[in-house]
Every structure is written in structure tokens, then in C-alpha cells.
């Protein structure tokens, strides 16, 4: 192995892959069989964290950053003057195996620029996965990119070796896509997604009758959207996400705050901030949809097209729906408890368990770990001491903000704005 050359390629092709935020290594069920290498039947593991705080669980690289497309938002676009490189199939296999054996990673996340055409690129990705599974007896996690426009036959084959497949929608609206990636067609993204979805459904059907049906993408498929590159509202993004969750049974939708990489006039300037707080609020909304029983229309709608930056989306919803509160901690059902600001699903579980044995009071809730600074305005418990005054939504909001801290405060503080105007 020529380590110097490999190092150079690795630096180029890891750098180009880092804007893909997915790092999930969980949700598969591939056990180590026949004394092979690796096991991805458990929970995901983050083996390290980059200095920006993101999880490193997979060797996340491009096979090549040569690309025939010229999408404005993408760092590997054809017209960008950067170093290009390409891995050989065997090189990726060797890197994956050697990193895995040292417990650096959970597996491989392989993406690629599109060279020649979609099928040619997809074939190469599949070759790597096939080699890992069949020659190296590798049972670690493999995430392959579905190349937009790849044929159904290839997508079928990819799912036999990969744990997860993903196509990145990148731009949440069709009009935005036309603006930033005029060479790409919306249908090309949808095609492999549709095929993978149908294969997974078919696998689940067959599995019921034939136990030995080969696994097909057991960790499902995911997608990613860039946030803040075109002028879309939070509602546009989340309605789109919701559509992909429902229509294509996505396991995850990722939101990636746009990192300025280009001086293209169609995009935010190179000095603009990465919208990290907005990204965070979108993820919170995503969690409320998937785990807390919220309907997207409750959180975002015509009257409320964007999420508040200064408070979380659940608190924001609760303040708009004060008529549903206060909730009695000792009698409310699980779904209503989950809607109380300051209660996470873990606290909800502990409350449900603990209240079987005795009525809970403030002390109990504190010990359980409830964020009372937010929750206390919305609940009553086994105590006569509770917020009896009818605070308005604005009063509650300012009281809560006063008692909490956020590193993003400067991003939304109105006082700072006043100060700016004065100077």
C-alpha cells in the first residue's frame, strides 16, 4: 500500500464528503455470522467527534470527486477549481477493513461524484460493498448513496449489500432545484427512492413466508436537505420532510445548514453565517413529529410559517394553545404528557412508572429530572403550590427566557439590535 498517495486521496475525498451530515450507524440487524468481521445488530456508536461537534461513526468518503454536474450548492461541482482524485475499489475496501479492525469506525459511508453516467457510478459503489461483504466477510455498517437516475436493477442489487441507502434531495422545493441545479431533474431523485421503498416493502412481505429471504437495506433509507441556500420557509422544509417520511417511509431526514462555499450570486454570500440555530429548531420539530405524536400542521401553518428562534417549537406550540393546560401529572395520558414543555420522552416514561406507586409532587419531578423552569407553567401535581396566576403567553415566554441560557442568545437578542442601530 502506498501510504502517501492514499493519504492525499483520503484528504481530498473526505473533505468533499463532509457536507453530508448523516452519520447514523444504527437501525440495522446484521449479526456476525460464521466468525467473520463486524456486527451491526446493536445500537449505533460514535467513535469520535469532530471539532465542530459532529459524530464520526463511519468512514465517510467519496469514491471520486470528478463530477459531470454543476450544481451551485455543491463543492465538487464541475466548474469549481479544486484538486480531483479517485479511489480504486480495492483501496476503499482496505481502508474500511483496517479502520474497522482498530475500532475507529462502525463501517463505510460511500458517496461519489457522478462520472460518465448514473449507472456507471452506481455500479462502482456496489462493487465496493459487494467485495466487503463477500470477500472480507464484513458485517459492519454500509451506507451507499443512491445515485439519482440509477436503474432499478442496480438499486435492487445495492440493497442486498448495503444497510442503508440514501438520495439527497438537497433543495427542498422544485423551483429551488431549477434555480441551483438546472441539469438535474426532480424525477431522477425520486426514481431510486421509489424503487428502494418498494423493495423494502416486498422484502417484508416475503420475509413472512420465507425466512431465508436475503436482507434488503435493513436500516432503510434517508435523505438530506440544505437549509438556508434558497429562500424557503421552515414550513416549506418541514412539509417537504413530512412528505418524504410518509410517501417513502424514510428512516431519517437530515437538515444541513448551508455552509457558504461559493460566490455564486444565486447563493448566500461567502461570509454569511451557517444557520446553526435554525438547523437545531428544524431537528427539534422533526423529533416532535416522529416521537412526540405531533402533526406538522400544529407546529407550522399559514399563520405560523417559521419556527421561533428564541424558544423551542414545543414551548412555542404550548404558548399558542394555553387552553389545553395545565395538565395534571398524576392523571394525564402519555400523549398529553409528551406535549408538556420541559418533559422529554425519558421523563414521561419515568413519570408513568413512578406514579403507579404514589402521587408525585414537585420534589419527585425534580429528582426525576424534569426541566421545571419550563414545565411549571403547564402542569399541576400533588401539591397546592402551583402557578395559579393566569400569565399571558408573552409573560411566560419572557420568564422562561430569563431563567435559561443559550449560546445562540446573541443571534436573536433584541437588545443587541437596538445597540447596533444606535452605533
Amino acid at each position, binding site marked *: *500500500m502506498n*501510504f502517501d498517495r*492514499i*493519504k492525499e486521496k*483520503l*484528504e*481530498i475525498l*473526505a*473533505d468533499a*464528503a*463532509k*457536507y453530508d451530515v448523516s452519520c447514523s450507524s444504527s437501525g440495522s440487524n446484521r*449479526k*456476525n455470522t460464521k*466468525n*467473520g*468481521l*463486524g*456486527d451491526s*445488530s*446493536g445500537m449505533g*456508536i*460514535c*467513535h*469520535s*467527534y*469532530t*471539532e*465542530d*461537534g*459532529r*459524530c*464520526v461513526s463511519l*468512514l*465517510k468518503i467519496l469514491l471520486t470527486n470528478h463530477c459531470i454536474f454543476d450544481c451551485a450548492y455543491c463543492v465538487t461541482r464541475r466548474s469549481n477549481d479544486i484538486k480531483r482524485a479517485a479511489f480504486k475499489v480495492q483501496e476503499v475496501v482496505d*481502508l474500511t477493513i*483496517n*479502520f474497522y*479492525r*482498530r*475500532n*475507529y469506525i462502525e463501517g463505510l459511508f460511500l458517496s461519489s461524484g457522478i462520472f460518465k453516467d448514473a449507472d456507471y457510478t452506481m455500479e462502482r459503489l456496489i462493487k465496493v460493498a459487494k467485495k466487503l461483504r463477500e470477500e472480507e*466477510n464484513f458485517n459492519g455498517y454500509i451506507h451507499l448513496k443512491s445515485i439519482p437516475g440509477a436503474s432499478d436493477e442496480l438499486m435492487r442489487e445495492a440493497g442486498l449489500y448495503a444497510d442503508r441507502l440514501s438520495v439527497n434531495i438537497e433543495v427542498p422545493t422544485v423551483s429551488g432545484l431549477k434555480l441551483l441545479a438546472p441539469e438535474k431533474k426532480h424525477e431522477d431523485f425520486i426514481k431510486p427512492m421509489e424503487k428502494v421503498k418498494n423493495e423494502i416493502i416486498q422484502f417484508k412481505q416475503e420475509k413472512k413466508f420465507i425466512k431465508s429471504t436475503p436482507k434488503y437495506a435493513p436500516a432503510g433509507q434517508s435523505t438530506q436537505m440544505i437549509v438556508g441556500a434558497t429562500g424557503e420557509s421552515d414550513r416549506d422544509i418541514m412539509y417537504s420532510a413530512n412528505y418524504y417520511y410518509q410517501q417513502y417511509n424514510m428512516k431519517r431526514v437530515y437538515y444541513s*445548514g448551508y*455552509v*457558504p462555499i461559493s460566490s455564486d450570486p444565486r447563493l448566500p454570500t461567502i461570509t454569511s453565517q*451557517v444557520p*446553526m440555530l435554525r438547523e437545531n429548531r428544524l431537528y427539534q420539530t422533526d423529533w416532535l413529529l416522529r416521537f412526540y405524536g405531533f402533526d406538522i400542521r400544529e407546529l407550522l401553518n399559514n399563520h405560523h410559517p417559521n419556527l421561533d428562534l428564541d424558544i423551542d417549537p414545543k414551548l412555542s406550540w404550548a404558548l399558542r394553545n394555553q387552553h389545553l393546560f395545565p395538565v395534571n401529572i398524576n392523571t394525564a395520558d402519555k400523549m398529553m404528557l409528551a406535549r408538556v414543555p420541559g418533559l422529554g420522552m425519558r421523563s414521561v416514561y*419515568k413519570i408513568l*412508572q*413512578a406514579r*403507579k*406507586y*404514589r402521587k*408525585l409532587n414537585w420534589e*419527585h419531578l425534580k*429528582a*426525576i429530572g424534569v426541566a421545571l423552569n419550563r414545565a411549571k407553567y403547564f402542569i399541576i401535581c400533588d401539591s397546592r403550590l402551583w402557578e395559579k396566576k393566569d400569565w399571558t403567553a408573552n409573560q411566560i415566554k419572557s420568564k422562561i427566557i430569563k431563567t435559561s441560557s443559550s*449560546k445562540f442568545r446573541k443571534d436573536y437578542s433584541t437588545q443587541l439590535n437596538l445597540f447596533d442601530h444606535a452605533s
Partner: protein
Amino acid sequence: MHHKILIYDGTFQGLLTCIFQIYEEKLSDYSIHPEGYNQTDFFANKELVITDLEKSGRVLKRFKEYTSKKAVHRIYRAFLSEIPGVEIQIVEFFRHIFRHKTDLSDDFSYPPILKIAQIDRKVGREKHRMEAFIRFELLKDDIFFTKIAPDFNVLPLILKHFKNRYADQKWIIYDEKRQFGLFYDLKKVVPISLNFENNSKKDPNILHEDEINFQKLWKSYFDSSNIKSRKNTKLHLQHVPKRYWKYLTEKTIIM
């Protein structure tokens, strides 16, 4: 009755034997410590409890009759924390169950049970961190080797994970703090103890010839996957507290 100090051998069975004795002698004023505990109370009555597998088995069996595997597991993991005083919390947990003769193991409003659940989570976190942060180095004799020094005694808990995962390679995980390790010889995992005088981890002579090259590749990868404009040191340190950096190739290797 005098305060009684029970000294046990540091094993889980030993602690269960203590519980047996507490019931047998109807003790109400007692404390429990592992061997090596230096007591200063000269007037207390000190007794060495000999681990008895029959007695400990009876205690556990009775406990399981009222509760579940999950509860036993939670207690065992809390026990492995080796936190001073955890023994008394465990005894209170058992007594709470025996007193009410029903499964109260999720009664988080009873302080010892909440405490055990919290310690269990801490131990679980440490276990998970070891599974994540262990970095093997390939030695000349084809063994993947690592040294660890976890806050809690998690080696018994991570055994299965590494055995399932690395079934086709020999490996050693050695706990420096507790001076014992696990060696997987391609068939089974055996406990070992090592003398480190001539087996230092950073001795380049014992490493496989490609080892340092792969470590450097990993470091390059780690650096290249960072997005500088999103730098967030607080979050980084929250995920990888500094006390774990010593394990991490990407934090320690000199390029």
C-alpha cells in the same frame, strides 16, 4: 445492638452473601465495605463475610421471583461502579422488594431505587464510551492490543460486544487501573494479567510495521472531516471529555 461492619471480598456474590447474613442475624445497624477498607471506628464490630454461593444464590433467586432480569441487571451494573456506599443502596433496593413482596423496581420515587437507576446510567455511559473510544494497535504477533483505565469496572460488560464484533482477530483489552485484562484467542475470551515492564504500548518495536501508517491515515481522515466554519468547542468537549483523549489515536498521534 452495636454497629456492625461487614467486609466482603468485592464480588457481587460476596455482597449477596452479606444480604443473606443481614436477614439471618436480623441486623439493623450495619455498613458494608469491600476488602481493603480502612476503618477508623475501633468500637464497631467488624466481620469478614465469606462468600457463599449457596446463600448468594438463594438471595438472588428470591429477588428474581418478585422482579425481572432487567432489575437484576440494573443492580449488577450499579455494583460495578465501585462507588463507595453503593452497597448500602443495593441492600436497600433488595429490602424494599422483600418488604413489599412485589416488583417495585421502577418505583423511582423511592430514593435508593432512583439512585441505583442513576448509577446504572452512569455505568452504561462509561461502557458505551469504552466501546466507542477504545483504539486497538496491531502488534507484530498479529494481536490487536489496547490499554484502558475506565472510571468504573466495565470490562465484564464490554466483553460480549468485542467478542461478537472481532470474532476473526486476536485481541487484548487491558484495564491498567484494575490490573486485569481480556484476551480473545479466536475461540474464547480468557482473563489475563500482564507485566508491562517489557510491553509498553508506545514501544515501536512491538508494533506491526504498518501500524503507525494506519494511525496517521486515521488522523488525516479525522482532520479532513472537520468543518471549520462550524467550530463548536463546547459541544466537542461535551462529547469527548478531555479525560478520554488519552485513548484516542486522533488526539495523541504526532504527525
